[in-house]
């Protein structure tokens, strides 16, 4: 299986588009905001990565977006940026599929729909909010706006949503029913998530994510979308290389099968429940990096790592792991920007229950 990556579009706390991502990777500076969350009987400040989607108005008239909520806006913006990056914004999308991975779906619309019931009774439930609360609303908005009439799929598998959905995206391409797939991951922050964060992890949050400090709970909630325009391998050299393998498994049956020479991008995002799995299942001495401190913690962050991997393959370099502290993992962490040793990058994510996903990207 070789799936070509033709374009990438990304929306995160750092801004939107490849240039903003590139700047964030070079500077290593995060864009953490602070919001007030009520939990444990008091209001506390909580760090979070939030997205601004106003750039979407550069692609679509405001009027067409009036019923598109924040969750879908992030996805639509990501998909338009990916198409623009691929130079394929204006083409006919009749044979384009839309495949989206999401951990929690449109949570703000889901709870706003409940608000409409609680405020005015069952008979006053909002149909617009209900329609936007359905998990596949984002994929539907993208298809409608682009007139993309290929298959349309949304997958929700928590931390494994991205590799799982990518499996089907690549298979649709292999099956030749379609010519391209707009594939992406999207998740949004909402007040309930903030409350849950405080309840599960406490209110004394670390000021930044320390992904390689495996035993420290340092996760900071985030949101965003990362999209890719994917096609079959047509024999040319695509802008960002190829997706060459997807592994999904569970540690009960053995860890990931990592080829020698691979540089690993670790999806470790400051959760101490799954952090220790990384050094345990990665061969010692392997070259690795982690960028979650730049964009935050949310289920579909593998899509963000894939974006950085695609950019690294294009630029033939590994960006420095931001805020890197010395670690005892036995891994070779890139403290400074370096040339790629081999054109093979694996994006590895462990879930909290021992499940894992590995997406391999190759430059050629």
């Amino acid at each position: 299986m070789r799936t070509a990556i033709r374009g990438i579009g990304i929306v995160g706390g750092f801004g939107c588009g490849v240039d903003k991502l590139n700047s964030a990777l070079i500077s290593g500076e995060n864009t953490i905001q602070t919001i007030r969350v009520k939990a444990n009987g008091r209001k506390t400040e909580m760090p979070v990565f939030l997205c601004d989607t106003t750039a979407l108005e550069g692609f679509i008239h405001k009027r067409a977006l009036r019923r598109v909520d924040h969750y879908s806006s992030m996805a639509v913006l990501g998909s338009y940026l990916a198409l623009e990056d691929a130079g394929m914004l204006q083409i006919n999308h009749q044979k384009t599929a839309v495949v989206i991975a999401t951990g929690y779906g449109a949570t703000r619309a889901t709870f706003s729909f409940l608000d409409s019931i609680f405020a005015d009774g069952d008979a006053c439930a909002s149909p617009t909010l209900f329609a936007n609360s359905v998990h596949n609303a984002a994929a539907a908005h993208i298809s409608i706006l682009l007139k993309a009439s290929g298959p349309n799929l949304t997958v929700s598998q928590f931390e494994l949503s991205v590799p799982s959905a990518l499996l089907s995206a690549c298979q649709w391409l292999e099956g030749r029913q379609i010519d391209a797939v707009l594939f992406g991951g999207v998740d949004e922050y909402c007040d309930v998530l903030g409350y849950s964060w405080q309840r599960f992890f406490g209110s004394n949050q670390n000021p930044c994510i320390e992904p390689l400090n495996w035993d420290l709970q340092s996760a900071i909630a985030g949101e965003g979308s990362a999209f890719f325009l994917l096609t079959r391998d047509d024999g040319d050299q695509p802008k960002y290389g190829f997706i060459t393998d997807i592994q999904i498994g569970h540690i009960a049956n053995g860890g990931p099968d990592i080829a020698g020479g691979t540089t690993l991008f670790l999806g470790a995002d400051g959760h101490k429940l799954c952090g220790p799995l990384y050094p345990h299942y990665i061969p010692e001495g392997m070259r690795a990096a982690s960028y979650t401190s730049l964009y935050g913690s949310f289920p579909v962050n593998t899509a963000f790592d894939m974006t950085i991997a695609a950019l690294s393959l294009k630029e033939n370099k590994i960006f420095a792991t931001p805020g890197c502290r010395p670690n005892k993992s036995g891994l070779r962490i890139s403290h400074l920007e370096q040339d790629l040793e081999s054109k093979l990058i694996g994006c590895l994510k462990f879930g909290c229950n021992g499940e894992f996903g590995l997406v391999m990207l190759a430059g050629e």
Partner: protein
Amino acid sequence: MNPNTPIAVTGIGCLCAAGANLKQCMDSLFAGRQKFAPPARFSSSHPVRYPVFEIPDEFTFLGCDQKSDILRTARLAVTAAGEALGNAGWSPATMQEKRVGVCIGTTVGSAMNNEGFYRDFRRGCHPEMNAITRFLNSNPAQVIAREFGLKGPCQTVVNACSSGTDAIGLGAAWIRSGICDAVVAGGADELCRVTYNGFISLMIADDSICRPFDAHRKGLNLGEGAAVLVLESEDFCRARKQPARAMALSYGSACDAYHLTAPAPDGRGLKQALLAALTACNKTAADIGFINAHGTGTPVNDRVESKVLYEMLPGVPFLSTKGYTGHTLGAAGAIEAAFTIACLEAQKIPPSAGFTTPDPELPWSPVQHETDVNGATAISQSLAFGGNNAVLVFGKGDS
């Protein structure tokens, strides 16, 4: 493996208001039993009590630890999977040796929408986290994999009302591409107040029993349930001398790209999905014995479906089974796939429940009486929010 290679269906499990297992469901369908009533498990302040098809309390949920704190949807999924795996003759030890994937469709089962928790949260009552923990432990595909010790990939498809159909089509593709030896594929969804209110807010729920394709239809009734198919490569099931109940011949999927909640009036996405599915298995209208339509009972859905079926599969008998089950959302496509296979085996289809008066606006109407099936191939199709259309073509198996 060829992308069009037939995949064997070796086991089926199903439960819904019509029955606690597939046999009971089919008995209900052919007896014309429709078990609907106002919701018993939740209340509503609507002045009208819209009927639903609820699973009765006396049905036993098999195959899962009753003490485990998981959502009803996940319990339904595990119960159907238990029946299907037993039916397929798989022992737990055998399953754990093979690459068995899980692909399950749902809507409610993936929604973080616990009303009690959120009501307390809004009031600043500092709710406990049990509801969130339960949600996080209840991903239907993951729960099935955990329960039966399955090692292949897991995927929970959240494509609204076509989720179950999509999950079966995608699961079959995993086998064709060599990712899995077998796949447990289907759909599950529970009734809940949130979706009940949502469908009423969209004004597409009927306050009496639903009447798919009937001139006086007013909308849908919600239901709940689950169905699971065990899919295997033909070689694999032959090697273990397990007869195939049916063959999953092909899957087609396409999007209307038209509207968030309404199908395209010209049925463009459904036509594209049907064409893709028929082309993939090299079948024509003449090969199709019957169609299990989506047939929700909403004026718009049924108009589009009737029009497309008349145009693309003229003369082929069709039915809707939602008058027996209600609309079970993410489970619907899987339950209807199970019914389609059972009808192929029986070589007959039950009357399309709720249909009595032909609609002059519809060019083609469903069967009103039990009807013999002529042919060894049948279609099950689903339409969904977001303009999704999904079509499965099944062929007769060995039985």
